[in-house]
């Protein structure tokens, strides 16, 4: 196990990109302003200098066409990492993603593989308004043939980016841009986190909080608040949404008998439904209360300073809801 160092989430993903691009000449990057400019979030800084314009490809503003080209390149020997600047714009690549990338391995009976990564920055924060704040991860998880990961920590971000690039299937990699400056210990050198494995971020007895991406940190903060009320919360991070590590989730809920699922996407028909229903199905006889689902507000994400903070659940609200759940008040 390589020794850890403390770096940001942004730097951790970058470390995986450097590592995989050095290891494998077929890894190429495609996106807008990712070359000399180093990306609008500085998330690709330095790659252009080392790998040049052949492998770090600045594209026109043509998401659909660029991604289609990435699919064709993936079918023929490349491992493209394609960047969608804001997650709101994955709307533009859905046809190539769903009707081509997700199905080609199946339709060709394995004659062609589509090893590529779609990475995109999502999340609410910084007052970017309704078209630059959405997290539409509930869409690709619905499509057979795709894998979807959503790392919450720098170490997982590094490890899952490496795994995503090495995977022979299309993988969608969602990064919450409000995590970019989060610093934590990250293993140096090669570090791969298997896709499809959840992790228990904090052990507890009374309630399981299943939280995704940035909500993991909200859940951990809520667990601190709950501890003061003598409620012991377990926080589980699925890390991958597709495939979902049902076993780890269910084991935790069977232990605590109560579950909350928290996600930052729109709540309506979002991922919390599937996760709650799955947990309820497998742990029905263990549950002392209905699974509680908490999600982003069901409105276009407003720009204004006073309204944007109302979109996502915070630790206080989560702790309040968890307390009520544990005390049998819901």
């Amino acid at each position, binding site marked *: 196990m390589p020794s850890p160092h403390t770096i940001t989430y942004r730097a951790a993903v970058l470390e995986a990109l450097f590592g995989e691009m050095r290891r494998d000449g077929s890894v190429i990057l495609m996106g*807008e*302003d990712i070359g*000399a*400019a180093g990306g*609008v979030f500085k998330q690709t800084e330095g790659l252009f200098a080392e790998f040049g314009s052949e492998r770090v490809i*600045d*594209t*026109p*503003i*043509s998401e*659909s*066409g660029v991604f289609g080209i990435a699919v064709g390149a993936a079918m023929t020997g490349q491992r493209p990492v394609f960047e969608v600047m804001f997650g*709101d*714009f994955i709307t533009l690549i859905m046809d190539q993603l769903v009707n081509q990338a997700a199905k080609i391995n199946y339709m060709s009976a394995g004659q062609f593989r589509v090893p590529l990564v779609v990475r995109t920055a999502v999340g609410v924060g*910084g*007052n*970017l*308004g*309704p*078209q*630059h704040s959405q997290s539409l991860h509930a869409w690709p998880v619905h499509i057979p043939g795709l894998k979807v990961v959503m790392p919450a920590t720098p170490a997982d971000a590094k490890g899952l980016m490496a795994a995503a690039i090495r995977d022979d299937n299309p993988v969608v990699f969602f990064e919450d841009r409000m995590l970019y400056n989060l610093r934590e210990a990250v293993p140096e050198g090669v570090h791969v986190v298997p896709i499809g494995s959840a992790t228990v971020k904090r052990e507890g007895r009374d309630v399981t909080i299943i939280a995704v991406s940035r909500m993991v940190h909200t859940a951990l903060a809520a667990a601190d608040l709950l501890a003061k009320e003598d409620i012991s919360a377990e926080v589980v991070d699925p890390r991958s949404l597709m495939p979902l590590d049902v076993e780890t989730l269910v084991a935790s809920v069977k232990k605590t008998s109560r579950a909350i699922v928290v996600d930052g996407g729109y709540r309506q028909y979002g991922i919390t439904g599937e996760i709650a229903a799955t947990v309820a199905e497998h742990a029905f006889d263990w549950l002392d209360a209905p699974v509680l689902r908490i999600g982003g*507000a*069901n*409105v*276009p994400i*407003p*720009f*204004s*300073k*006073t*309204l944007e903070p*109302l979109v996502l659940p915070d630790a206080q609200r989560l702790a309040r809801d968890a307390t009520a759940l544990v005390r049998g008040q819901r």
Partner: protein
Amino acid sequence: MTSSPQMATVSPVPSIASAEEGLRLLRAMKLIRAFEEQVRNLSAAGVIPGLVHLCAGQEAVAVGVCSLLRADDMIASNHRGHGHCLAKGGDVGRLLAEIMGRRTGYGLGRGGSLHIFDAANGNLGTTGIVGGGIPLATGAALSAKRQARGQVTAAFFGDGALNQGLLFEVMNMAAIWRLPVLFVCENNGFGEFTAIEDVTAGADPLARGQAFGIPSETVDGMDVLAVRMAAQTAIERAREGNGPSFLVCKTYRYGGHHAGDKQDYKDAEEAKAWRLKDPIERLSRLLKESGLASEAAIAALTQEIDREVRAVVDLAKVTPLPADDDFEAHLYA
């Protein structure tokens, strides 16, 4: 590679009809310039949250086109849209309030700079999706054609949108259906930090319109009178039922992609050269040289606008922020 001011085709110098008209155009451009300057300051001071994309340098395009539009004509704008909004008659106070996220703004402060809608003045909205406004203006042109009241519409977009497939799909339909729409490209040489030449094939963007048989013209976007001349032809064509036009206006943004951008991808010499073509200076000079306006009159205008904008800023700062009630308001009609 970066863009060069020499690339702009200089149209035959058009003349100006009256002092009144000249001052109206000058006023409109100066208002935008002054407004953007304030927005830049307010953004730097943190009074405006999020990102703002300023159009200083590009005023002649918005003003040239919109000065010829009727109140019931419509425009669709893009992310760099404050100028379009003001040129189309938008309210300075409601615009600034929206950009500042105040509940007195056009969208109760919930959209911000990227989402300014002004139905009363025919603004179908700024948008955060590159190319996203183009079909909206064209759809409005479809309505206009059905309603047969001679309305025309204009879509403003940047050179970056020249590579969105959407533009081509929409141009094709505008052409076959002879819709009364102007496709107005503000070619400022860059999409974010990337130079147009690095991502845009073909000798001339005009060919993108010509491929569909759309009358297309390169315009000096630093000259409001040149823009007006080209727009006039295009608007007449549209009003007479003869379909769309495509104008590629060569221009330059003085600032960065957004306020705060360090702009290290720009060539300093080039930036300086573009400043020499400043559309406001140019019109001022013309007005003075032709005796249509005195130095003093122009200075008075400048002062008046400064006062007006300052007052708006002062007022916006004390207007209320959105309340919890506004969170879900108008989610559904």
